[in-house]
């Protein structure tokens, strides 16, 4: 999808300090070398299958389908992966790549903590040092994941600048990388940042749609009518869309976090409220003010609470190939509760954004049509904050 300069249409690029340019180029060259290397791919497949529990299930949500009374709904169960989210797919790939490059230390940003936990896990497995940057606000709302990262041997650094959320964690990880790149790989968690990160992350996450396609053809003998995923930076959505981009009959739908609504300032719906800008190494859509100052975005979901979106999604939006819809906190929380009761599956609050939109869409479709929702992660980490949202304090 990228052209040789790492662009997706007008988006993407490498807007990075000169200090990091050789590190980014080194990564680009290493990835070009290993991407088609059969040994590397075999090693990665082995890790995905025998460590991370792939392939993940494609589950037919019968009760939900009957209850909504429209399209047949399947759930792609990334929540069943080791560490409880899709993040591990990308992390195992990047950690293995970093190791081949001779790096001994991984740094990462994290919002909800899922990418941080996955990175800490891969670092433990591969015997690498690990430092995770996490916003102060997120550390408070995701205490369980903070504990897990420390248990796994990672250092968690609290980021107190800015809004103390995901964007500040990314900025701080980038700053850390400029101080130390010889032995350190920045294991970025989403399809964002400077080229080649969006491509690398998208490639490593593409296993999601590769499996959906195979599993769907086996089960239904045809492709789905729509695939739906939540979008922050966009990695699980990129993975969900990847192998369907050239199948125009499959609708690609990304669900953005609208927070308290797209007409309020408390939103993180980048495509729906942002405009083109340059930040965190890439050109893409960003929530910003008239002078280009990045907006302090908000969502109940720490993983979607980011003012930008990956450049590939910006491009898919520009060309009309994918559709990006806003989903509010309230809708996501309702979907979180709905899926728990209806299917006995507690989705991550991020994934619940995709479920919420599917709940609106399914009844408008025919019973002969099929929707796949990617459940990007499990919801254990969110129980305390959802309880709080409903006015109940539980001690976790």
């Amino acid at each position, binding site marked *: 999808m990228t052209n040789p*300069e790492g662009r997706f249409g007008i988006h993407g*690029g*490498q*807007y*990075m*300090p*000169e*200090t*990091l*340019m*050789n*590190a980014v180029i080194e990564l680009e060259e290493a990835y070009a070398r290993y991407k088609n290397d059969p040994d590397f791919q075999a090693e990665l497949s082995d890790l995905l299958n025998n460590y991370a529990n792939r392939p993940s299930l494609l589950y037919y949500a019968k009760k939900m389908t009957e209850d909504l009374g429209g399209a047949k709904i399947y759930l792609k169960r990334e929540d069943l992966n080791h560490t409880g989210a899709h993040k591990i797919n990308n992390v195992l790939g990047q950690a293995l790549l970093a190791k081949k490059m001779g790096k001994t230390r991984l740094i990462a940003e994290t919002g909800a903590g899922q990418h941080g936990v996955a990175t800490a896990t891969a670092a433990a497995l591969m015997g690498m040092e690990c430092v995770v940057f996490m916003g102060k606000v997120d550390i408070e709302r995701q205490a369980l994941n903070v504990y897990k990262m420390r248990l796994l041997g990672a250092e968690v650094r609290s980021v107190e*600048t*800015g809004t103390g959320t995901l*964007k*500040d964690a990314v*900025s701080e990880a*980038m*700053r850390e990388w*400029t*101080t*130390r*790149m010889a032995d350190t790989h920045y294991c970025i968690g989403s399809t964002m940042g400077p080229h080649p990160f969006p491509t690398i992350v998208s490639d490593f996450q593409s296993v999601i749609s590769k499996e959906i396609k195979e599993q769907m053809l086996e089960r239904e003998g045809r492709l789905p009518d729509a695939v739906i995923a939540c979008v922050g930076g966009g990695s699980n959505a990129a993975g969900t869309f990847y192998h369907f981009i050239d199948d125009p009959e499959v609708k690609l739908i990304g669900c953005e976090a609208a927070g308290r609504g797209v007409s309020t300032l408390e939103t993180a719906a980048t495509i729906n409220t942002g405009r*083109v*800008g*340059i*930040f*965190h*190494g890439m*050109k893409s859509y*960003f929530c*910003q003010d*008239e*002078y*280009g*100052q*990045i907006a302090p975005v908000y969502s109940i979901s720490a993983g979607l609470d980011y003012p930008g979106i990956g450049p590939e999604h910006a491009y898919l939006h520009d060309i009309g190939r994918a559709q990006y819809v806003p989903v509010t906190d309230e809708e996501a929380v309702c979907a979180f509760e709905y899926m728990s009761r209806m299917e006995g599956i507690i989705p991550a609050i991020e994934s619940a954004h995709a479920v919420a939109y599917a709940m609106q869409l399914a009844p408008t479709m025919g019973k002969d049509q099929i929707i796949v929702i990617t459940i990007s992660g499990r919801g254990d980490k969110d129980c305390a904050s959802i309880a709080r949202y409903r006015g109940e304090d539980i001690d976790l």
Partner: protein
Amino acid sequence: MSKIATAFEKGNAFIPFVTCGDPTIETTEAVVRSMVAAGADLIELGIPFSDPTAEGPVIQEASTRALAGGVTTDKIFDMVARLRADIDTPFAFMTYANVVFSYGIERFAARAEEVGIDGLILPDVPFEEREEFAPAFAAHRIDLIAMIAPTSEDRIAMIAKEAPGFIYLVSSLGVTGVRSQITTDLEGIVATIRKVTDVPVAVGFGISTPDVAAHMAHLADGAIVGSAIVKIVGAEGAQAAGAVGDYVRAMAEAVHTA
């Protein structure tokens, strides 16, 4: 010759930086006047950005203060226009790609020329992305300053070759901020630069004392100081002009006699 180059005509240049609007635009205006009086050869005017990824805590905090105080790109243009009425010292803006991109690259360049800006430093626009910005600024006779880092290695010649104005040599790894020592082989980098260009080289990042500034100016053609000055502004607030002037005088003297 560009106006930026005139800053280096009399010898080594001392280049102080200030975050515009920290804590108010009036303070910045007074600080700049006092820098000029104290012997600054070129002044870097920082347009604050909400998320400055190349800055350490001191300039991050200054940017936050300035934006909280309500400064905008337009208010900074107006301030530069007022200063230009009686100040001839070259000015360079330092800001981030999105501030310029969001304003409109051509519109920003035109307005910058109109108010009397001579150079622009964009730390998140490396050589690979220059072409998006360079033509508009060249057309408006503003030098888009190139940066070279300790990690640039085989990129040095490519970057230096057509760099206008002066070359900003980043002293060490990491973000802006005061450092106790600088261990990069700057002499080697300067020698590589000299093979392809005659434009002056100024060293920045981490410099705070007259001794280090003099040493850097001796290795190259100038020294850039940001965080140490922004720290003074942070401590002195609206009354910072006097203290900044004293500091700049000592630093400029050390650089000029190096």
